């Protein structure tokens, strides 16, 4: 470092002279961070332990490889993804209606929204799935006057039961996420939208929701990932998603761990892809708001 000194411009403060330093070119002292080293050592040690454990364990890796791309597993995977998407779409539609209903001037609408959240958030998901699937015990036939009736047993297939059960349950949780997002937008935005002649619906669509998205997307992404895994609960009502498929395979060949690993790998693949999608959505709706880093 140069020892030469610059006499700073007179600021009228004092007569001090300061060393002439340029942070861009000066050589730097590396900061010693013992914690970092310890963290690294721990992480490496843990990894070695895990790998070692799996290597020694009685896992037939060729079996894992064999079933990883088995057609029946792929079908299960397909149903898992399909059910995730279908129930999330149902859930999001319901959640938006409920969240908007919470802000309605009509107290009947508000009351319906609140009761819905109370009911579906207050009972276990597994119980709700069983209730939907066994609807036939309560309502033997479902239909509309003038259109006709059908036996509930025929209508309430495992697929329909799972879609309704998972969707409505997720809707109750996500309505709170969306409500929080709507509340995060400054009331001034809503007033400005009204002042240029927008109705409540238009203001919500064009001004409030696009801004609420920034707050809504991270937890909804979370819900999406959670739903991918929750679909496995639908195996109890006979919906043949991935877990159901691998279970029925290992009931025959007793390769329990191998098949569970196959399922785990595919769940990880799907949830990883979802995380990547979430990242892009966040960027898309983060425009005009800075990076969100603190």
């Amino acid at each position, binding site marked *: 470092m140069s020892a030469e000194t610059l006499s700073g411009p007179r600021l009228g403060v004092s007569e001090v002279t300061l060393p002439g330093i340029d942070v861009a070119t000066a050589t730097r002292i590396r900061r010693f961070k013992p914690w970092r080293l310890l963290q690294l050592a721990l992480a490496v040690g843990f990894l070695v332990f895990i790998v070692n454990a799996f290597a020694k364990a009685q896992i037939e890796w060729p079996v894992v490889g064999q079933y990883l791309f088995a057609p029946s597993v792929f079908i299960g995977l397909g149903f898992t993804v399909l059910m995730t998407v279908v129930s999330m779409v149902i859930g999001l539609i319901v959640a938006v209606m409920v969240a908007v209903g919470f802000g309605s001037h009509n107290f009947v609408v508000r009351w319906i929204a609140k009761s819905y959240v109370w009911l579906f958030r207050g009972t276990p998901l597994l119980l709700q799935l069983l209730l939907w699937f066994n609807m036939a015990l309560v309502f033997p036939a479902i239909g509309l006057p003038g259109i006709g009736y059908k036996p509930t047993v025929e209508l309430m297939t495992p697929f329909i039961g799972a879609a309704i059960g998972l969707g409505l349950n997720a809707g109750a949780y996500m309505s709170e996420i969306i409500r929080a997002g709507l509340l995060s937008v400054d009331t*001034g935005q809503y007033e400005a939208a009204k002042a240029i002649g927008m109705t409540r619906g238009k203001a919500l669509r064009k001004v409030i929701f696009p801004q609420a998205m920034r707050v809504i997307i991270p937890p909804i992404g979370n819900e999406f990932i959670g739903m991918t895994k929750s679909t496995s609960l639908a195996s109890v009502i006979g919906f043949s998603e991935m877990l159901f498929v691998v279970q029925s395979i290992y009931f025959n060949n007793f390769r329990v761990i191998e098949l569970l690993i196959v399922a785990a790998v595919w769940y990880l693949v799907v949830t990883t892809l979802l995380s990547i999608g979430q990242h892009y959505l966040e960027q898309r709706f983060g425009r005009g708001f800075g990076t969100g880093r603190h």
Partner: protein
Amino acid sequence: MAVITAMNVCKSYGHLQVLKDINLEIQKGEVVCIIGPSGSGKTTFLRCINQLEKINGGSLWVNGNLTGYRIVGERLLELDEHEIARQRRATGMVFQRFNLFSHLTAQQNVSLGPVEVLGQSPKLAASQALELLDRVGLAHKAGAYPAELSGGQQQRVAIARALAMKPDVLLFDEPTSALDPELVGEVLKVMKEVAESGITMVVATHELNFARDVSHRVVFMADGRIVEVGKPDDILRNPQEPRLQKFLSAIATAPRPESADVAVSALGQAL
């Protein structure tokens, strides 16, 4: 015909009466400044004109239309949301805190209303938005988001946004009081140019110089009432009501904005 007519307008929040028997007529092309101490009801009056608040008594008319209701014989029918939204198009509002849509660029802020509310084609609205931004001196910031603009620039975009709806009357609620002193001038300059274009304007403000130079009439409010109305020179140089005299002398003895400007420019030279 008067653009705005307030007849015995009353407004209260619970037990607090904020507007008491407001009577005022504002003619087409008039620029009216509302001054008065904090809490006197200036903001509330503007919000009532724009129907962001509902009045509890009297009646408010914009362009000869009763706001908020339809007259059916001798009775009143409350307007629904769509009809109120339609009535609001007659009035444009510029807020103290700008309230630009933060997810949209300056140009999109200006064109959103014309496209979504007036049904203009996006292309036409975009080019008109650019013209309006040019008019407020911000054509070069068309692609900037509100967070990337200074307070003064944001407020000028907000003025362009209000103008884009071609309202019959523009309402300004203390448009410069959230601004740093050195940014006030650019906004007042734009407002002066807008006023000279002949549009009707109602401006709640603490800028007495603006009131004197630009407005045709000044309304002094205190405690929810209109205390004195008149030409700027009469109101500001020759006040009759003791409350107004007190208000003006209090402002005169307070540190004046000019002195802040002097301080700023002195600082600028020093650096």
